[in-house]
């Protein structure tokens, strides 16, 4: 998912007796399934956690344009080029919706952007992996969007109104993303031996990073417990990961591809697959900035932002001149 290891207050969930009257009323509203709107009273920790989470989610959409953007100019057909471009464009749109949701909490988009560019705020670990063949466009759509959807669908019911509404719009638009990825995989898996090899190679490289998207187990995390009490996190990381594996393994089988996990086996008792955990030390390396593409991704975003400054300033200066001229004429 696009928000990983989001820190909350770190103090654990308060018992109703320890809450102030305002906090208790707030928690009761959430428990009753009411939506919290920007102008409503909310605990400072709720606001801060949401800014972190929505911001990270938005940053992931924005940085997430880069690995797929890497293949737009090399798409094999006009139709594939158009589909991929439309998909990456959607991601820019989703980032935009999410930044707007965060802005209702009293932070500006440019402030969030600067925190991303300075490395202060994070984005999903998955986008620090390279896209090396056309099959990676399939794998990203199928696995990465598939993992993201696991998280985004329940977030449509999150307690903060603007976030929930952004997620509704995003989920509606995302419905074609995973399908286009799987469609690419089907073509590759049923194609020439070279295409089949590309497809298997893409699955090999993206399987574990996709599992990492859900973050390490958080069953003992005080941050997650608070976020779940506030309904800004709807499921535990392990729940979502299990659901993802259960959904994805048969899809891989249909493609005739092998999931790179020798321990993978159906477990009748739990009604799901047993599977190997990803290498969490690799995950923490990526989070710390040592993923294969961290440096390139941040450099690309910084360059776009720096190169664009004169454009943003120029268009604003023109708008201000026109507004001044209009006032003078009145």
């Amino acid at each position, binding site marked *: 998912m696009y928000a990983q290891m989001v820190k909350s207050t770190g103090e654990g969930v308060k018992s109703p007796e320890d809450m102030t009257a305002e906090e208790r009323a707030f928690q009761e509203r959430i428990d009753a399934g009411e939506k919290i709107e920007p102008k409503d009273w909310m605990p400072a920790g709720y606001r801060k956690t949401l800014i972190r989470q929505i911001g990270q989610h938005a940053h992931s959409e924005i940085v997430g344009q880069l690995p797929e953007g890497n293949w737009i100019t090399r798409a094999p057909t006009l139709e594939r080029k158009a589909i991929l471009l439309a998909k990456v464009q959607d991601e820019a749109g989703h980032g*935009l919706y999410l930044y707007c949701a965060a802005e209702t909490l009293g932070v500006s988009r440019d402030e969030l952007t600067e925190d991303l560019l300075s490395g202060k705020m994070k984005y999903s670990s998955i986008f620090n992996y390279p896209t090396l063949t056309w099959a990676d466009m399939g794998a990203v759509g199928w696995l990465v969007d598939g993992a993201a959807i696991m998280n985004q669908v329940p977030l449509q019911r999150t307690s903060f109104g603007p976030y929930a509404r952004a997620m509704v719009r995003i989920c509606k638009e995302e419905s074609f993303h995973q399908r286009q990825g799987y469609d690419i995989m089907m073509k590759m898996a049923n194609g020439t031996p070279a295409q089949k090899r590309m497809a298997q190679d893409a699955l090999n490289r993206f399987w574990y990073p996709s599992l990492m998207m859900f973050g390490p187990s958080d069953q003992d995390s005080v941050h997650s417990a608070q976020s779940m009490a506030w309904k800004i996190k709807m499921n535990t990381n392990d729940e979502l990961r299990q659901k993802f594996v259960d959904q994805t393994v048969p899809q891989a089988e249909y493609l005739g591809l092998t999931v790179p996990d020798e321990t993978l086996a159906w477990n009748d008792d739990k009604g799901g697959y047993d599977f190997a955990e990803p290498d969490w030390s690799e995950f923490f390396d990526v989070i710390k900035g040592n993923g294969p593409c961290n440096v390139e991704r941040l450099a690309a975003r910084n360059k776009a932002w720096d190169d664009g400054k004169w*454009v943003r300033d120029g268009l604003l200066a023109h708008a201000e001149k026109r507004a001044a001229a209009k006032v003078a004429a009145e």
Partner: protein
Amino acid sequence: MAADPFFEFLCRMGDNTLVLGHRVSEWCGTAPVLEEDIALANTALDLIGQTQMWLGLAGEVEGKGRSADDLAMLRDAWDFRNVLLTEQPNGDFGQTMMRQFLFDAWHVAMLDALTRSTDPRVAEIAAKAVKEASYHVERSGDTVIGLGDGTDESHRRMQAALDLLWPYVGELFVPDSVDDAMAEAGIAPDLTDLRAAYDDHLAKVMATATLTIPDSAFAHKGGKSGFRHSEHLGHMLTEMQWLQRAYPGATW
């Protein structure tokens, strides 16, 4: 044997949108602001869609079973028929928007005339494309104005872009034997008829943008005839056609 001028003409229309659409798509994820990223992608998507229609018809007219993708991905640079303007590199955002506006202003006039083509297939494609191009020219024109009349820096950059790209405008309007044959058949307009309105349009936008149109009628040529493209096109095709060339016969 001289090539069929109708096929040539359709390749010109389709290659213009293909090459320019590709250039615009190079911006993906790196525009100055999110809203521009999304807008640029829309422009690129429109142009790619138009390419599919023009090159699809070109393949049909040629009658050798070549699809739009075959034409896009398997011809070499000398068989491309786009004007030189469209293959110029993106440069900074200002250069991209200036190139876009100089092309859009011609494109919308051309497509409008093509809606009255004697060939119903051409008229049909033009009717759909002209709606898209009308929006493109409005947006690129506004951006040229905003940046031309923005800060000192944005003004300077936009003037530099106009100076750089101006010599590539003429090729859009200078007819050759293909254009003459199309005009005679009533399939396409006489290109020289489009120039006066274009100049008016440009003069208005550039005046509002406080930009000066270079006092030169010099025009590079060689793109739409395919005789001499710029060095840039070959690099673009190397990237665009790579998968199809490296894995011939594969289905994607």
